[in-house]
């Protein structure tokens, strides 16, 4: 017998739970406040009455226990790394160490105000300064700004620095070269800086070929943005030659570091000729993704771009550490305060827990796991680029389409087997892509269970395609009507009547 019943995934007691706005009762409270120890003046005597509001309509009135039960219940409708395998390609869903949660909440970190004088924030500043050194070492670049709030924010910051660099040389350029396999944030970040995006095609082996770059390269090109390893999970083996071509014409090389997890301690972007790279702390460096953030996107640069880094930077002084906003050529700020500090604490703790050998082992194991899955599944799924991969492998639904079973169906059916689906329909250059990134924190047994599930689904696609097309069957709800959500948007709860 095959099917999810024999592998993993169980159905426990699942509760229905309405919106919080449909619960509670007038007069019920979920808060406590100390008594007011200053004169209790009426608000109207301190603020002109026409600037005051009445009671906030619709805000629920619930007790503390009801709040806990509500969010605990709805949390059970979520899948997370803590529950199971989450091979979402390009997202590096590795285990999020719990000790990092504890240390980020130490009062000296969690209750520090960002405008504390530097002498009262030496612990925070030292941590930031040291984290900068570690990220510079891993990336092989000179300086790192910890300022940006997410990967896309780091990209934007990096592109702004490139723009400022060209402008400082009296050579404003108009274009940025971006491979078609890139994340959507690359062109979007470039457009926010006013650049025209020139798409570049990948070669037959799934990597960018120097010849193509040479042809597209002229003195209007400000930079090339390359993801390496790329979104097919392949190492851009011509990167050094490409960097040379771009540099020769005065362009800069931007690397999207989303996939840094594959190469830590093995090869360094700085040694390829990269000028700028952003790093996703919520991917490679274990910051929990939290259902869509917070993340952070530090940007590493070579010395010639350092004058353009956003402010503030963290500097080591004779007496300790200090924030420095005195950088005349800086692009300015891209957020308030210094950084998403809490995220920095978690990533710092992660790096210190692994050390140099652990980081390298993480990269090697992530690559081993991806190649294992790729080789075990290539008889069952079409593999567009059959060569050694890095942290992830990309299949397509070409085989299953013969039975009218699509990537989306395969993804939904995986849920019945107790797995989160891979990233689907990305990269765009592989029609029906299934992008699988196992990370290093999964055991061989888990990988084998996943492989078995994928093989079972491949069989089902031939023998019971309707079963796959109707999936998922096990989650609390079935496929949702996304067209209806977009055509008749309901974006908030409103009181009835």
């Amino acid at each position: 017998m095959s099917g999810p019943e024999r592998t993993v995934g169980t159905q426990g007691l699942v509760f229905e739970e309405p919106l919080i706005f449909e619960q509670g009762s007038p007069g019920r409270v979920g808060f406590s406040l100390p008594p007011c120890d200053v004169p209790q003046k009426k608000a109207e005597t301190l603020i002109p009455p026409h600037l005051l509001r009445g009671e906030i309509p619709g805000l629920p009135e619930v007790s503390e226990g009801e709040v806990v039960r509500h969010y605990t219940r709805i949390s059970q409708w979520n899948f997370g790394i803590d529950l199971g395998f989450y091979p979402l390609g390009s997202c590096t869903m590795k285990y999020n160490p719990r000790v990092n949660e504890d240390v980020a909440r130490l009062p000296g970190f969690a209750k520090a105000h960002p405008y504390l004088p530097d002498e009262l924030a030496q612990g925070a500043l030292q941590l930031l300064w040291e984290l900068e050194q570690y990220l510079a070492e891993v990336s092989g670049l000179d300086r790192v700004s910890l300022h940006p709030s997410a990967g896309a924010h780091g990209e934007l910051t990096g592109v702004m620095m490139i723009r400022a660099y060209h402008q400082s040389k009296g050579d404003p350029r108009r274009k940025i070269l971006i491979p078609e396999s890139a994340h959507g944030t690359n062109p979007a970040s470039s457009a926010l800086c006013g650049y025209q995006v020139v798409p570049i095609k990948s070669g037959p082996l799934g990597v960018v070929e120097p010849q193509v770059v040479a042809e597209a390269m002229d003195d209007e090109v400000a930079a090339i943005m390359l993801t390496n390893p790329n979104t097919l999970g392949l190492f851009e083996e011509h990167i050094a030659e490409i960097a040379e071509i771009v540099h020769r014409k005065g362009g800069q090389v931007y690397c999207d570091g989303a996939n840094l997890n594959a190469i830590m301690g093995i090869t360094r972007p700085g040694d390829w000729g990269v000028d700028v790279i952003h790093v996703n702390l919520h991917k490679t460096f274990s910051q929990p993704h939290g259902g869509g953030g917070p993340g952070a996107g530090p940007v590493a640069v070579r010395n010639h771009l350092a004058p353009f880094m956003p402010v503030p930077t963290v500097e080591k002084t004779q007496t300790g550490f200090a924030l420095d906003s005195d950088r005349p050529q800086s692009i300015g700020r891209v957020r308030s305060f210094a950084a998403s500090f809490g995220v920095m604490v978690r990533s710092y703790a992660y790096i210190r827990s692994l050390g140099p050998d652990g980081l390298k082992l993480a990269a090697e194991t992530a690559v081993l796991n991806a190649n294992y899955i790729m080789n075990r599944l290539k008889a069952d799924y079409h593999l567009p680029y059959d060569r050694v991969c890095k942290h992830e492998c990309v299949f397509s639904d070409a085989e299953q389409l013969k039975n009218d079973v699509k990537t989306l169906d395969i993804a939904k059916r995986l849920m019945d087997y107790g797995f989160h689906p891979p990233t689907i329909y990305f990269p765009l250059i592989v029609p029906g892509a299934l992008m699988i990134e196992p990370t290093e924190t999964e055991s061989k047994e888990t990988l084998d269970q996943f492989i078995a599930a994928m093989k079972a689904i491949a069989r089902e696609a031939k023998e019971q395609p309707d079963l796959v097309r109707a999936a998922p069957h096990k989650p609390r709800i079935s496929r949702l009507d996304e067209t209806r959500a977009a055509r008749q948007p309901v974006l908030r709860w409103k009181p009835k009547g």
Partner: protein
Amino acid sequence: MRYIPITEQDRRQMLEAIGSGSVEDLFADVPETLRFRRALRIPAALSEAELTKHLRVLSDRNADADRWSIFLGAGCYDHFSPAIITHLIQRGEFLTAYTPYQPEISQGTLQALFEYQTLVCQLTGMEVSNASMYEGASATAEGILMAHRITGRSEVVVARTVHPEYRQVARTYAAQLGLTFREIGFTDAGTTDLEAVKQGLTPQAACLVVQYPNFFGGVEDLAPLAEAAHAVGALFVVCVAEPIALGLLKPPGECGADIVTGEGQGLGTGMNYGGPALGLFATRERFVRHMPGRLVGETVDRQGRTGYVLTLATREQHIRREKATSNICTSESLIALMGTIYLVSMGPQGLRAVALQNLRKAAYAKERLGSLEGLGARFDGPTFNEFVLRTKKKPAAVLKRLLKREIVGGLDLGRFYPELKDCLLVCVTEQKSREQIDALATALGGVR
């Protein structure tokens, strides 16, 4: 390494299945000239016990708001955070989930974000909220870019009472697209100069941006400002850096705001030396397709059961690439969940009560400190939980003396405003006791 379960034996078996002799072979595609052949210069691995101890030592070098009396606000506020917030957001189902791309197994995050969007609308009086931005300053910059897209105009009129760092971020963003800025001064009430606004707003203006309450704690009268913006066809962008104020103050949505941006950090998410924070972004229904960021919408499944999905994604970078309304992808979902739990725990009564305590304590402090010799309130307009104090001595010297008593007395405004170099910005939240305020007064009395 305790986070990596693959054993030596597993590795051998896996390599055999792959048909490789060694892990090294898996990196054969990395040219030898690019290989990194030394060890990373990073300190050796620490055990959990060593790590915890090390970080405890580092964290103890910071002045935390529990041990010190800290009267700093300026965009980051020390509010009480109920214990349940930390507990609930550490449930692995919330903490370790990705952005909810697969709605069938992400309904927890999606329903929570739908509740968050609703709460932000209720708080701000607006019609639609997105599912969060990074933080207040970049959210405000994105609000300005949105006004530019809607109006097709390139002039930004912004009050100088908007947080100086928010204005810096807005300039960084807007400079890329060639938008120009005009800044509007403030009156002795400590609020935006309405006459100057009217003069500064031309038919080229994309938007007027004000902060509410403003950087000095001043409570702006929004309605006439909205009228002035609308008179020239500009959008009215209201930035809220201290959301607790909306427990008492008339919501921007009732005062003519077209876009409300801001910082949700005050909603029980903690200070964390400035982040992670919570970018607020709300607008009118008619502008929804111009919005940046994720939106969660209600729909039904195949059996007609209610559920939630990410929607209107055709605005976003993963679909539209260079034509997207923003490049934002990962934002602040978990912090939005913190804000959600805070707001529903406080409820209408709690939110009003905590806002009232902030107002009263700051009013007490303003009166108490302002009447000391050598000190005085710089502005005479209404304020919420912050106010500007003029000092006879240099603010830096005053602050330095206070440090000896483990008091951080406020922010030296000379840092951002040359014309206020004799001024301190003082913040008093519900976390400060009368005793602490009196101790500040006593200490300030001693440094006349």
